[in-house]
């Protein structure tokens, strides 16, 4: 579905990760477990090889065997189609292919320190990694006279090693940040044009005119393109809040969430386009509902509730003659409130299971509606919103698709504001799919309530080398507004 771009491997939102999350959520743990095991083995063999090479001559059987083991470990972790593996050191913690290795960060301290001493924060081993690369890398780590990354690179070159690439974190960060900024800007452009488009659609429909579908299809394609390049940049757009255009933003948000979930479920390109268009238009029927009822603060009367419920059929009615690629938008508009247990509305003459797209849109609609603040309703914390969805499994929502959504979003989803155990307040900006409870966050308010000049990035999987435990954890998810945080999107 998407090409693997190794430049992005370090990031959680990399295409490699998309490939991981495109597997249904329930399948992911076993695949992750295998990869994690391979990553651990690689760290161990590298440390052992370094140790043996420091104790014995290069021809000693133990050294030779440990080099072979290292080569074997690299080849094991390189799954078919995967051309290289990256080992990262971030704030003293060892990562291999985005898998944090807490124990190894402590037990292989010498390896980490020897790399950092030379300014090496990342090393990439390609599929051509062989015994020559292994011995060059290991002997480099044992050469005290090599003190910087340039000398290290030169040493590898002189020893005929072409299967190892050394990098400094700053190099990676700068390139990554530039890419992220670009994707974010592109995503925002699509988002803004989407809001404008949806406003036009709404206006046309209110005037009883037929709206153009092509621009909407173009919008979906644009969002999809950016999603494949940088899912986080697009998913982050759902954190954009607008007090004036809730409905318009909501439909774009649902579209983004639905597309992301669709990718995670493994839908093909045509299906994704159909899903995206359906997710943009599913609530169109609301234009036929009086605004005073839609925006009513208090509880609705039975009659008003009937009117609100009619929006599903009204939406389908509006879409029934629109010349779309397929009729999925009409179907989703009609079915999105029918619920998994078919106890919803409109009532069907012959009950049939909701279409997959209707299930997806229903979930994304509920999640975004709950987590968005509206004039008459406060937003619900993302973790609690997910808990509501989990409670609704088998009733309102399909249980398997619900789990897939949570696997994609994380238990603390991107844009969630969290209070950390050290008292600081942070925004989740990347989900770690190998540990849904430990995302990457940007601390914005210090423990004493002081706003930081620049947000500080913290990976909550990081290990405190002294205690061997996690450096910091999430204490609880908190409402952004209550902590004075206005625009979460800027931190993503």
């Amino acid at each position, binding site marked *: 579905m998407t090409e693997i771009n190794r430049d992005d491997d370090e990031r959680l939102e990399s295409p490699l990760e998309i490939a991981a999350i495109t597997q249904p*959520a*329930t399948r992911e*743990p076993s695949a992750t477990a295998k990869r994690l095991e391979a990553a651990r083995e690689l760290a161990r063999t590298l440390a052992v090889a370094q140790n043996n090479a420091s104790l014995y001559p290069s021809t000693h059987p133990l050294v030779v065997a440990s080099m072979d083991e290292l080569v074997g470990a690299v080849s094991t972790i390189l799954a078919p189609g995967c051309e290289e593996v990256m080992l990262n050191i971030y704030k003293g913690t060892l990562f291999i292919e985005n898998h944090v290795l807490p124990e190894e960060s402590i037990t292989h301290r010498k390896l980490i320190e020897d790399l950092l001493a030379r300014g090496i924060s990342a090393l990439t081993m390609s599929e051509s990694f062989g015994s020559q690369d292994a011995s060059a890398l290991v002997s480099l780590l044992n050469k005290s006279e090599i003190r910087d990354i340039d000398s290290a690179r030169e040493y590898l070159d002189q020893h005929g090693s072409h299967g190892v690439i050394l990098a400094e974190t700053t190099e990676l960060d700068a390139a990554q940040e530039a890419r992220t*900024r670009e994707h974010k800007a592109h995503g925002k452009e699509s988002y803004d044009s989407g809001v404008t488009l949806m406003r036009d659609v709404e206006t046309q429909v209110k005037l009883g005119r037929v709206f153009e579908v092509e621009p909407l299809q173009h919008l979906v394609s644009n969002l999809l393109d950016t999603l494949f390049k940088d899912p986080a940049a697009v998913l982050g757009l759902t954190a954009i809040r607008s007090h004036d255009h809730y409905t318009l933003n909501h439909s774009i948000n649902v579209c983004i969430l639905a597309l992301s979930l669709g990718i995670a479920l493994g*839908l093909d390109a045509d299906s994704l386009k159909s899903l995206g268009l359906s997710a943009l238009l599913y609530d169109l029927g609301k234009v036929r509902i009086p605004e005073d009822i839609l925006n009513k603060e208090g509880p609705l009367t039975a009659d008003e509730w009937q009117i609100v419920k009619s929006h599903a059929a009204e939406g389908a009615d509006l879409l029934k003659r629109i010349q779309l690629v397929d009729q999925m938008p009409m179907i989703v508009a*009609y079915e999105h409130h029918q619920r998994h247990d078919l106890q919803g509305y409109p009532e069907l003459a012959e009950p049939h299971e909701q279409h997959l797209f209707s299930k997806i849109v229903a979930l994304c609609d509920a999640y975004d509606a709950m987590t968005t603040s509206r004039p008459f309703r406060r937003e*619900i914390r993302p973790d609690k919103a997910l808990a*509501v969805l989990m409670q609704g499994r088998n009733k309102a929502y399909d249980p398997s698709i619900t789990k897939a959504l949570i696997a994609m979003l994380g238990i603390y989803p991107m844009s969630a504001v969290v209070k950390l155990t050290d008292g600081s307040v942070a925004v989740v900006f990347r989900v770690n799919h190998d540990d849904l409870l430990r995302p990457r966050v940007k601390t914005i308010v210090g423990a004493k309530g002081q706003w930081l000049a620049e947000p500080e990035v913290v990976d909550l999987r990081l290990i405190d080398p002294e205690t061997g435990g996690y450096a910091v954890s999430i204490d609880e998810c908190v409402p952004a507004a209550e902590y004075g945080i*206005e625009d979460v999107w800027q931190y993503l």
Partner: protein
Amino acid sequence: MESRPGKSAQTHAEEILRLLASAANAVRLYPESSPLRETAVEHFTEASAALTSQGPLRFGIDRNRFIIEDTPVGEGSPQIAALAEALHTLQVGQLIIAPGLTADEVKAFLQILSMEARAVRASGGARDALVGAGIRNLTIVEVNLRASAETGIMGIDLTAAPIDEIAAKLPELAHNWLTTLKEGSGTDDLAAAMDQPDAVARDLAAERISEAMLRLDESTRVSIVTAAMQADPSGKRMDGMLQVISRMTPSALARLLKLVAPRFGQEPSELAGKIEIPPEVAQELQVLLTPPAQTDEQRGVPADPGIEEMAQDMAEAHEQDSERIEQLVSAARKTSPAGRALTTTVDITRMRPNDESFKALGEAIPPAIRASAFREIEEAIALLHDFASDSKLAPAITQIRSRLADPDVLADVCRVLVDSPEEEGAIAIVLAAGHVGAEVLMATYVNTTEAGRVALQPVVVRLSESIGPVASRIVQTGDPQAAEAVIRLLLSLQDKRVLSTVAQALEHSDTTVRSLAVTVIAELPGPESTQLLSKTLSHWDPETHRLAAREIGRLGIRDAVPALLKTLEGMGAYEGNHELKKEILKSLEILRPAQAVPVLNRMANHRFVIGKQRRELRSLARRVLASIRAEMNVTPER
């Protein structure tokens, strides 16, 4: 908290600087009456209006270059570099362009820029010159404007000093307010420090102090605001600080007010009422300060989200989830939504039975047919039936019916029936299409393989009422291959009612067809077929009537013996229909009927027979007679 400019923002900034530089050159080089000068100013004014629509644009000036949020702009452009240098010479550290800048203001600014730098400085500096010229929407921050002359907050440039430096001064200001308050009248140094001559600079200063407030510990921030809310005996509060906090984002301000309010024993919203807040912020603030109408619990939201349980649940690999997702995805990929779309359209049409709905229904049917969604099509046909009596809808319904009766559509349906003859929806479509349906069904039957015909046969049987006329036409005038196929089909029905149709095949122009018809008539049960076969003995085509005679014998149709005899007798001894006589005699030999004896006797006893054929007939008659007598055990007559 400002975000970095994106690539496009930089490009725009560069463009506006280029236009400003061009305008500066035009003002410097051309006389006031020159249209070139007007045009250049106009271009810049328009561009600045577009670019500042979201807020002021601020450029830093570093000798010969402009900087926008730490990023140099327009490097490599000598024109822009010259503009930066000109501003630098005037000791301008920042250039701020606000929304609403007019062409007159631009001209006045460029006039100042074209003046001798020393003269400008000597007359009080560029900023004073701008204020003096009445320029409100373009301002500059001069380098080292205040520094050194004053102490405390007054000694720093609030529009340019580092935020942390400003933050460090704020507690002292609040403390000073409280101290002087006790002495009778509060001293608001912050208000004095912000008292800039132009609005743009004042706004900028207030925003930066507001940002600085957030850099402080929350407890310090709360203390400062608590102090600022204290009124002096004249009822005056620390307006400078209140002006600053009114610039905070609504969320930050709401939090601050919630923390400060208890110190005054007031509600946060009450406290907010004492601060001058822009209306748009006030509205949002009010929402944030008002307790929610419903608690989480009332909204069905759990107090504890159960994070650990959720994590545990997510960590467990459930094969069934995986399988279910695969099934759903596979179904979405492989199954056309056309059937579901039709069902939805049917539901909508029932809900809103109007012309538009029926048109949509008509459009939804063909894709459903292509997707073989026949159950759904049945629903649609039932709907058409339910509304058939509605005169207003009649044209729309007729149109759908005609669409359903489209031969191409029906051909698709019939092709499906070859593979799935039990598809009730498909049968319903063919049935609903009347004679066209029957035509297409028969055409499909004729043109399909033998296996296909076998599969279609039960369908045809069910639709025999409709296909009768079509079958008649084919057996009479259709091409021989089609006619044969239909005749065989009729035979397979083993229903005497098809006899009249088969009989029509006797008039087909092709001999093979007629022959087949005879065979089929002979094989169909009942006296009617015997009668027809008997009648066929007098068919105009010799081969056909010969075959009829042969079939009577082959199948042992005794009831047809009288007809055989009548035909045999009806033909005179010298009539030339030799072959028919021979076939009748052969059949009589098989049937051996006693009542044939007299006729045979007469033939056998002809004395004067001339010609080989007649002799052969006499011989045959004698043989048949002998065989009948043998069976009857009767001695031959002499």
